[in-house]
């Protein structure tokens, strides 16, 4: 009985965090964000070398074959550094779905390239959570019609994995005829989402997802866990920055951290955020080890981190006073990353409803 990270897990997280500190400082994030491409290729390459993209890909496919907890630790590190690289969709949701429901050929075709950082797969599932500005996606004899909104990690994607309204999953080549991909600009410039219009677009079904929603739902669970972990990392950075600023900034001849009002804002951030770490650990562990709890915990991790992240993003900004809202300090990159994670793959109210269903309350 030991509710803690193992040595290797800590080392994995440290190695990535340490690299990002030097390889992906705020200035680098700023360049990529302002260029608007939301992918730092040098960072992407180095993360490949660190095994990030293959974290969930089995060793037989050239990955490192670790579990969702390790993936969550990586997501946390990426969020902490607001790293502008695809991860949740391309390195987690896609491999999970391919492993669950993909054919041998499909796994052969994609898993090694994902692990090698040679392929990015975008994920279009928003319609199956809460349709907005679309009538959904219909699949008929190998073709997709309709519109997928807010497709994750879509910008540089070599393939798209789109869910149709029956819950089936389809691989789509974004360069094929009948597919139009348009970028949607959000407040968060470190990740990309796109609109994908499908007009008789050729699509390749993941066989295991035919007449079976479970692969879709498991993939969404995994994606929600990643967004929760990403928020955990981003919020922890904001809380740490607030404490550091409160120790150094002086007003009225005192460091402001000695004022109860500021001190208590810092304490409240810590009190709210610290238990979230345990929730994310447990939810990621349960996803693999206690599947009957997996969905409930993934929902709570996503919803609770969304609420706590919102709180911390605000309070940290307040502790920073006017500087908190300037671009000079760049605190807003974390603020916006947290805001992005809150709305994608289901806003808290919607996800909590799913948690109610997961325990048969409704």
């Amino acid at each position, binding site marked *: 009985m030991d509710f803690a990270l193992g040595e290797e897990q800590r080392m994995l997280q440290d190695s990535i965090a340490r690299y990002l500190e030097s390889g992906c400082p705020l200035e680098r994030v700023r360049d990529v964000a302002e260029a608007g491409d939301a992918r730092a290729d040098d960072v992407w390459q180095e993360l490949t070398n660190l095994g990030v993209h293959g974290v969930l890909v089995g060793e037989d496919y050239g990955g490192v074959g670790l579990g969702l907890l390790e993936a969550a630790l990586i997501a946390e590190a990426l969020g902490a550094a607001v790293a502008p690289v695809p991860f949740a969709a391309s390195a987690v949701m896609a491999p999970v779905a391919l492993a669950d429901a993909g054919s041998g050929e499909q796994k052969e075709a994609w898993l090694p390239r994902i692990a090698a950082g040679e392929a990015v797969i975008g994920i279009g599932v928003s319609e199956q959570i809460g349709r907005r500005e679309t009538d959904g996606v219909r699949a008929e004899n190998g073709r997709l019609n309709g519109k997928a909104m807010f497709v994750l990690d879509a910008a540089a994607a070599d393939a798209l994995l789109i869910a149709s309204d029956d819950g089936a999953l389809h691989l789509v080549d974004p360069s094929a005829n009948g597919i139009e991909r348009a970028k949607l600009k959000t407040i968060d410039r470190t990740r990309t989402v796109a609109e994908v219009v499908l007009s008789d677009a050729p699509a390749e079904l993941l066989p295991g997802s035919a007449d079976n929603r479970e692969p879709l739902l498991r993939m969404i669970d995994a994606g929600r866990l990643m967004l929760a972990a990403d928020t955990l990392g981003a919020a922890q950075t904001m809380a740490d920055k607030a404490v550091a600023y409160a120790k150094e900034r002086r007003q009225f*001849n005192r460091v402001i951290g000695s004022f109860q009002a500021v001190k208590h804002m810092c304490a409240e951030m810590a009190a709210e955020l610290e238990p979230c770490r345990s929730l994310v650990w447990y939810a990621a562990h349960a996803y693999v080890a206690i599947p009957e709890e997996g969905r409930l915990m993934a929902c709570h991790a996503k919803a609770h981190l969304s609420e706590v992240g919102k709180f911390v993003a605000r309070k940290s900004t307040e502790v920073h006073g006017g500087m908190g809202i*300037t671009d000079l300090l760049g605190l807003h990159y974390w603020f916006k990353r947290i805001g992005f994670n809150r709305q994608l793959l289901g806003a808290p109210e919607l996800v909590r409803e799913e948690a109610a269903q997961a325990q048969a309350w409704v």
Partner: protein
Amino acid sequence: MDLEYSPEYRDFRDEVRAFLDENKHQAPGPRGATPGQPPNSPKAWQQLLIEHGYAARTIPREYGGYGAEPDILKTRIIAEEFARARVPPGHSGDNRLVPTVLELGTEQQKQWLVPPSVRGEMSWCQGYSEPGSGSDLASLSTKAELDGDEWVINGQKIWTSGAQNADMMFCLVRTEPDAPKHNGISYLVFSMDTPGIDVRPLVTMTGDAFFNEVFFTDVRVPKDQIIGKRGEGWFVANTTLRYERGGLGDPNEAENRFNRIADIMQRETVGGERLIDNPIYRDRLLKLQGQILAMKFNGMRVLSHNIKGEEPGLPRWIVKLNGCELNHQMAGLAIDVLGELGLLYDGSPYLRDGGFWQARYMLDLGLIIGGGTAQIQKNMIGERALGLPKEPKVAEAGA
């Protein structure tokens, strides 16, 4: 308890409406969004408004105003009718500088500064905050030393809105370095074209640059461009602050925003269901409605006190704290109910209300912080309205 306007005011409202119907075609386009700046309405329009008493209403005629007795209700009716008609209102020069000069300036200063400001030929920016002096404004360190007949200013200001377009700045500088901090400050006015002034835009989280940093390097200003006496600038500035107050957290503005969100929720859908039909979103909306109505009526109460020349007390002290918080909450609700659509920004396809809600969510957080953080507001409410003791003073060595 009488919510009706008396005949005198009903007539006045009719008069304003008649004027607008007749003249709105001459009105220029809507004023720029940049706060702190006088509207960019052409002088002719401003002049017409002054003649009819719809601008610079209470400023004496000898200084270019209309010279009417202050009448809060008429001022409000003018504002309401111009807003209703979507016609850019007039201005009174600068609502911080002009009243201060009229109250504390010399006759020569009044003649020099007020008429052109009122005509819209002289625009202003405010040089108060400094990087090291936010909540503790009185600790400001930008210094001005007298050299012959000129002040020589060195230092830096921040959060200076409109500095890139303003003709003039009113500025707090430290002239008596050895005096206690509140007694060492002077209030200077000078042209933004004065050599040695460097204005750099300050980009905020919204991506816009409403604010600026302003750097002073040996900026020389004639000795007599000081309002009030040497070392009394802090008290002069507080006069200004008194006039500025109430600009933030306007309850009617809050109600307008609320109605926009209620409309969105009745128009937009998620999963085919109207947002208003989601009971959790609906309850959040209703909770906000209760708070917003309470603040609206609180505003009517404050107005009624002001009309009678009474000090409103607590009802006024809480306006900024509650108003900014409610605006931030509303923007947060709008973003949440719009879900992924609420994240869109920066001219994206499907963008709602031009990204207004994301911008407000960030701007209103800025307003919670700026102009006295929420923490400072709570100190003021506790100390000035409730009479709780101040923090014990701490020695310079403190912390």
